[in-house]
């Protein structure tokens, strides 16, 4: 058989197995996967989670002669069972854009000039040593867990302050505060298995058909096999998800709180809520005068009274959703014979009332008892591959410590100081600046309160992804005493004017560990060499930390005088800061196994690193069994599934804020947004993502097939608005808000269809920076900005004379 025939035969075997396995939830025992990936053609295969979204599909990466030549959905992975979306399919190509950064570049006389790594590390360390308090790190949900952990330890354990943030603040912080306010602990109780069991799937401001296509296909596949799964899309514009929905409910931007309250009102009014579940497991809460995340306890009668104004007729007036549809939703939630899963992502999170709406949707599930059984779950999704694993679990935020611990609590600081072997008091109790504030201060002159002077950005692109970049990012590039360091793989809107650019290894060019949206921790090994002098971000952090140690910065020593990141092999310290020795030992394993000691406190237990090298990820809490094996948890707080639920409890919210094993059902009122359309700016503007591109497009715009499929940004507009403005499909218009303007083509009845009065623009296109127009107003608890609604206007472009 020739190689071509062999490859085709292997491809058919892989597709056939994927088709069989993809019958999610259908068979008690799906066909046992056997890898069809024969090594006979010389290709070496290994597993890795996909580099792109928070779904966390596993791929098999085929390497030949030091280069990725093949990608296959991993047949052993429960998340995707051999399937991939169009981005995952091309993920290998993300490494091979022609303009990879390959050398450190230092701005000298205004020009980014190649320098050595030794000089780059020295420049950073000397700047930090001279003024540690004004140094901050800004990372991302694309940091691997060891990278995030090292950055956090350097800032909080080494420098003794809390100026560290991550871009996940911009995408899921309101989900975190929603979970904390409701359950007292972050992250979903359910998992993707819910999608195989639900009778009703409600997508709240969410478009999984494009953003989490592999998850969405689990549901569509069930319907294609004749199973009845009712899909309800609650959105502000019609999307690809709406096309599959049984009901698509369009609401006026910002009024989702009214809808959730309307459902709760009817459940209470009609007595169709789950009284038994509520009596046993829930308490009621509402905002307090001091506006704390915990709010104040209220009685059921208070709750009922607060909901009273959310009658179907009033909700219709507020939201635009027909009263009969509110009744329909309430009737579904009122049924005990159905299993209901809610999904949401940026629509609910990027919201100045993000915490409030997150809490309300949890509340509707708790009130109706649609919780704790497979298929009955309120589940938030994440956009980045390790927003959960790194940012939420490691805690790379200005208030957080690993494993759900926080800097504000003395006992939490003491626990982390103990594990790090640093003196008591090393970790500061003073919360650092959240993302918007950090960048505001970086963009403010130092003598006017701009007390962040040196900022190190890793694995993210705030020059494109921050809201209102004119105000939050661009001014810093004109201030002489501000120094921006950026570690990245390609030139971006952020590296463009950076003072120091560091070339990073990407994905399988280094070891890594991610944590996906369903609490699944996933590990991979380095498979190919990075180009030029690109190096792993974790090495960059450890090398700077070592240089700080050599410069005598006291925090870089532990209590015994040892280097804070001392890594041992066979009992001897390995000089991992010296790149020649970095791979003498598995640094990821050392950092991960130290970090996991801190994950038990809030019962987010992780297994030892070695367990993840064998698995396609494990969902925490992962608890050791009497036989020495490690067992993951699919459904938290549920007896028989979650090892921390006491026998006989059924459901137990063991991290409850009220310390009585109860979850909180919140009332939060509908409130006006900070900016609404008016006579000058008559449109709502919403921003978001598209299937082909991943976030700011740094990687996917370099994959020719994806760039050609979706080459540039556009503004979606309704046919009615276009005709009123006299604008044709494809015609360039000027889109303007109070913060800026851009020119871009109109797309009518395109990928999505906004209703009259609304516009949508994707943010992947660096040449059409929509974030010059967005608002930086944010949720008061999560500090997450609202990218989904601001006031805008559109006009035809004047014809060139």
């Amino acid at each position, binding site marked *: 058989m020739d190689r071509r025939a062999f*490859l085709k035969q292997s491809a058919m075997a892989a597709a056939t197995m994927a088709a069989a396995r993809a019958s999610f939830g259908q068979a008690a025992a799906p066909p046992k996967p056997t890898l069809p990936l024969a090594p006979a053609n010389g290709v070496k295969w290994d597993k890795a989670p996909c580099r792109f979204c928070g779904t966390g599909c596993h791929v098999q990466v085929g390497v030949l002669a030091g280069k990725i030549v093949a990608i296959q959905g991993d047949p052993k992975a429960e998340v995707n069972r051999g399937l991939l979306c169009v981005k995952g399919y091309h993920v290998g190509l993300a490494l091979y854009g022609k303009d990879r950064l390959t050398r450190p570049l230092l701005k000298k006389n205004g020009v980014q000039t190649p320098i050595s790594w030794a000089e780059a590390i020295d420049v950073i360390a000397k700047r930090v040593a001279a003024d540690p308090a004004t140094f901050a790190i800004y990372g991302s949900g694309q940091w691997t867990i060891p990278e995030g952990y090292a950055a956090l330890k350097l800032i909080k354990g080494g420098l003794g302050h809390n100026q560290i943030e991550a871009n996940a603040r911009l995408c899921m912080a309101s989900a975190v505060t929603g979970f904390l306010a409701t359950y007292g602990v972050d992250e979903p109780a359910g998992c993707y298995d819910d999608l195989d069991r639900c009778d009703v799937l409600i997508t709240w401001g969410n478009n999984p058909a494009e953003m989490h296509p592999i998850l969405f296909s689990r549901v569509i596949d069930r319907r294609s096999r004749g199973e009845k799964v009712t899909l309800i899309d609650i959105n502000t514009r019609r999307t690809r998800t709406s096309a599959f929905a049984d009901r698509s409910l369009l609401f006026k931007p910002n009024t989702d709180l009214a809808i959730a309250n309307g459902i709760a009102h009817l459940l209470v009014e009609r007595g169709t809520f789950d009284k038994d579940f509520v009596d046993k497991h829930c308490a009621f809460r509402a905002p307090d005068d001091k506006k704390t995340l915990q709010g104040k306890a209220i009685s059921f009668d208070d709750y009922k009274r607060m909901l009273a104004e959310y009658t179907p007729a009033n909700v219709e007036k507020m939201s635009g959703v027909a009263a009969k549809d509110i009744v329909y939703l309430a009737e579904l939630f009122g049924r005990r014979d159905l299993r209901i899963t809610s999904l949401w992502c940026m629509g609910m999170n990027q919201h100045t009332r993000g915490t409030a709406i997150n809490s309300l949707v949890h509340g509707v599930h708790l009130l109706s008892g649609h919780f704790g059984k497979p298929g009955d779950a309120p589940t938030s999704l994440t956009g980045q591959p390790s927003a959960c694993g790194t940012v939420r679990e490691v805690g790379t935020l200005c208030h957080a410590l690993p494993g759900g611990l926080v800097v504000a609590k003395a006992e939490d600081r003491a626990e982390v100081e103990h594990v790090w072997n640093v003196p008591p008091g090393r970790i500061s109790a003073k919360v650092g600046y959240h993302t918007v504030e950090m960048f505001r201060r970086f963009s403010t002159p130092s003598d006017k309160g701009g007390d962040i002077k040196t900022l190190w950005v890793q694995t993210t692109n705030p020059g494109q992804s921050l809201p209102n970049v004119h105000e939050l990012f661009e001014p810093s590039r004109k201030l002489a005493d501000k120094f921006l360091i950026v570690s990245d793989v390609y030139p971006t809107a952020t590296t463009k004017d950076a003072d120091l650019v560091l070339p990073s290894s990407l994905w399988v060019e280094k070891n890594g560990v991610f944590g996906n949206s369903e609490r699944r921790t996933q590990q991979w090994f380095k498979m190919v060499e990075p180009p030029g002098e690109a190096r792993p971000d974790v090495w960059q952090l450890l090398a700077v930390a070592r240089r700080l140690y050599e410069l005598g910065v006291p925090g870089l020593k532990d209590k015994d005088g040892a280097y804070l990141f001392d890594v041992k092999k066979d009992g001897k310290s390995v000089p991992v800061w010296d790149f020649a020795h970095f791979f003498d030992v598995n640094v990821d394993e050392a950092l991960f196994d130290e970090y996991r000691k801190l994950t038990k406190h809030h019962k987010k237990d992780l297994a030892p690193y070695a367990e993840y090298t064998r698995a396609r990820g494990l969902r925490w809490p992962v608890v050791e069994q009497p036989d020495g094996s490690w067992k993951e948890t699919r459904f938290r707080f549920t007896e028989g599934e979650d090892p921390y639920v006491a026998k006989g409890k059924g459901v137990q919210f063991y991290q409850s804020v009220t310390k009585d094993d109860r979850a909180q059902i919140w009332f939060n009122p509908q409130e006006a947004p900070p900016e609404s359309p008016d006579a000058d700016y008559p449109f709502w503007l919403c921003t978001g993502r598209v299937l082909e591109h991943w976030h700011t497009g740094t990687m996917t715009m370099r994959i020719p097939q994806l760039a050609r499929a979706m080459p540039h940004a556009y503004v979606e507009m309704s046919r009615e608005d276009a005709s009123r403005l006299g604008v044709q499909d494809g015609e360039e218009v000027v889109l303007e808000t109070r913060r800026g303007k851009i020119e871009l083509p109109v797309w009518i009845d395109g990928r999505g269809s906004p209703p009259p009065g609304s516009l949508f623009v994707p943010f992947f296109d660096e040449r059409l920076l929509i974030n010059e127009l967005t608002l930086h107003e944010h949720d008061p608890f999560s500090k997450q900005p609202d990218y989904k609604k601001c006031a805008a206007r559109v006009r035809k472009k004047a014809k060139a004379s």
Partner: protein
Amino acid sequence: MPIASVVITLDARATLHDAALAALRDDERVEVGNRVGARVPAVLETRTADEGEALVREIASVPGVLLVELVGVDRSLDEGDA
């Protein structure tokens, strides 16, 4: 010569899915495997990656096709394209 493996999900309605299968079998770049329920495994062989991309879109627009999901792509016959 990229070789791609895909899984095509067909509409449960018999007339639609028979017509979709017939359309797929008519395209010589598509090798259709044995159906597993509503899912059909297939291998696409195209001259270029771009053509492969276009073919996936074409298949997705065939009446009776609900979804096209990708399983793998092998470019090792065409290493310059990787």
